[in-house]
């Protein structure tokens, strides 16, 4: 029975996931729509055509609604760090504290200046300065996402730091190594470009609704052409950055890659599962089949992971139990060295407290030798090193399937727009409308892959989530979970309602 009781850590994780997922409903639309508005306004300034100004202002209103409802929802995540994840926030404070504070100040000044000009300045500043402000909002909004994504990238691939055993803190050793780590760079480029795709789908969907209702057709078609062109380019970029992101996952988080493909036994010419029904009951090391049904493309996972279709890709079993033939040290072995690191850390702490510096130095030397496996010392069984495979697998495949569908939609829109028959393609307009929802599904699925796929780690290999949390009562976190659920649902409903009202009104007369 006890196994089914949700602990503080479970509630803290659920609360963080809930907040992050709701937050990520608002953010990507802001990131992408800001650029689309900048494109629309650029066309207006270039052509002087008033229709483009009206169109720009319409999308700007929807942007404003989304921004206003979503603003500061991310701050709740920072509240949670201090209360629910105090061990974690203490340990990473030296690395993330200042950049995240700078980001907050930067965002405030950006919003207070260029946002104000963008919304209030239509008749008050020159066309050129207004356009400049709109571009600054687009660039600034996207730049304000840099640090939080760098922080996330660091958690997936901790680099440029050293652990200080006296302060129990990771301290930054090399700023550029943290900021420009390949995982951080690709996290930023992949995330922002996918946000551009979502915003393009949003513009397509709302415009398609106008076409279906036979309202504002000229404006709708103009919006769709720009959005489809931007969305297609962004989709290509999403594919390229996604490929790079997967390459990084293969080298820095091989367990996540194996879970993404449900690969239990490593192999050369490792396939990608194009379609499959995964066996959710399977555990590392057992004899159950990994899939009930599957369609594979041979060699593609090897190509993705190592740029070589004939290369070896380790499976979950290799990474859990080790594979001597392939020189892979498994979690089983790393648990042993991790426990040595932990014991020596405790030893060092005791020696320092009792003033025995010789013993402290000896313990520290041993700790330094094994500290790379520190997190494994907290695991109770090697299988705990594997993430929930079914969730990771399905999320990854949903994301990829949708990511493949979207550029096709953009191409179809461009094709029919240039043929001059977009308004007659009812099926395509319906597809565009429902693609708004699909865009959000892809966004959320992407984050599920990134975050569920890296379990059990809060910081890859160094700190499991169970150790990152605070020892507080589960009921405290449970209460605030339901408060957030209510608050965010109310905000989402408010956003949808106000947006629908504005869409009903349409562009200004």
């Amino acid at each position, binding site marked *: 029975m006890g196994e089914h009781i949700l602990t503080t850590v479970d509630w803290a994780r659920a609360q963080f996931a809930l907040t992050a997922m709701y937050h990520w409903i608002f953010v990507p639309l802001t990131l992408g729509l800001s650029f689309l508005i900048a494109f629309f306004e650029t066309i207006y300034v270039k052509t002087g055509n008033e229709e483009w100004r009206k169109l720009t202002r319409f999308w700007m209103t929807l942007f404003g609604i989304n921004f206003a409802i979503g603003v500061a929802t991310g701050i709740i995540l920072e509240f949670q760090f201090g209360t629910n994840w105090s061990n974690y926030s203490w340990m990473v404070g030296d690395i993330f504290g200042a950049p995240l504070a700078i980001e907050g100040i930067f965002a405030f000044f950006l919003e207070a200046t260029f946002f104000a000009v963008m919304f209030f300045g239509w008749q008050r500043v020159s066309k050129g300065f207004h356009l400049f402000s709109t571009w600054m909002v687009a660039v600034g909004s996207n730049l304000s996402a840099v640090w939080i994504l760098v922080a996330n990238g660091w958690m997936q691939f901790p680099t440029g730091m050293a652990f200080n055993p006296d*302060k129990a*803190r990771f301290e930054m050793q090399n700023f550029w190594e943290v900021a420009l780590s390949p995982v951080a760079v690709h996290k930023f480029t992949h995330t922002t470009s996918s946000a551009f795709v979502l915003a393009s789908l949003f513009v397509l969907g709302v415009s398609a609704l106008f076409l279906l209702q036979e309202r504002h057709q000229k404006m709708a078609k103009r919006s769709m052409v720009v959005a489809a062109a931007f969305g297609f380019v962004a989709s290509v970029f999403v594919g390229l950055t996604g490929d790079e992101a997967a390459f990084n996952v293969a080298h820095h988080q091989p367990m996540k890659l194996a879970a993404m493909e449900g690969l239990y036994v490593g192999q050369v010419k490792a396939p990608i599962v194009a379609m499959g029904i995964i066996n959710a009951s399977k555990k590392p090391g057992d004899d159950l089949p990994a899939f009930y049904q599957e369609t594979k493309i041979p060699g593609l996972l090897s190509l993705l992971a190592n740029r070589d279709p004939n290369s070896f890709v380790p499976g979950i079993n290799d990474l859990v139990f080790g594979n001597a033939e392939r020189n892979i040290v498994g979690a089983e072995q790393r648990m042993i060295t991790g426990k040595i690191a*932990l014991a020596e*850390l405790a030893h060092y702490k005791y020696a320092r407290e009792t003033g025995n510096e010789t013993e402290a130095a000896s313990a520290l030397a041993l700790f330094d030798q094994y500290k790379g496996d520190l997190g494994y010392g*907290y695991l109770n069984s090697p299988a705990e090193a594997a993430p929930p495979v079914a969730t990771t697998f399905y999320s990854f495949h949903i994301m990829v399937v949708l990511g493949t569908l979207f550029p096709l939609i953009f191409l179809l829109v461009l094709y029919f727009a240039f043929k001059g028959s977009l308004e007659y393609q009812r099926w395509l307009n319906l597809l565009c409308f429902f693609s708004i929802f699909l865009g959000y599904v892809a966004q959320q699925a992407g984050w599920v892959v990134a975050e569920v796929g890296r379990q*059990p780690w809060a910081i890859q290999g160094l700190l*499991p989530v169970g150790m990152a949390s605070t*020892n507080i009562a589960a009921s405290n976190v449970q209460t*605030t979970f339901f408060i957030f659920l209510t608050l965010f649902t109310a905000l989402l409903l408010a956003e949808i309602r106000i947006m629908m009202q504005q869409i009903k009104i349409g562009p200004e007369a």
Partner: protein
Amino acid sequence: MTSLPKQLYLFYRDGFRSMLVGRTLWKIIAIKLFIMFAVLKLFFFPNYLETKFNTERDRAGHVLENLTRMPPAR
């Protein structure tokens, strides 16, 4: 010729006055920020280490104690 601070003041004042849907949005922002900072942060989200410990040394000691206690991982 009005001074720059006055121009800025008038810019923001007129901007806020001319808002339509913006008025509703500002109300939502105000309510949201009130709930977040005056209710949630104040009553539900104290900074655990800052409220329980007075010095950086004590906070570090507490975290180090947690790290070396080795409770079951998840």
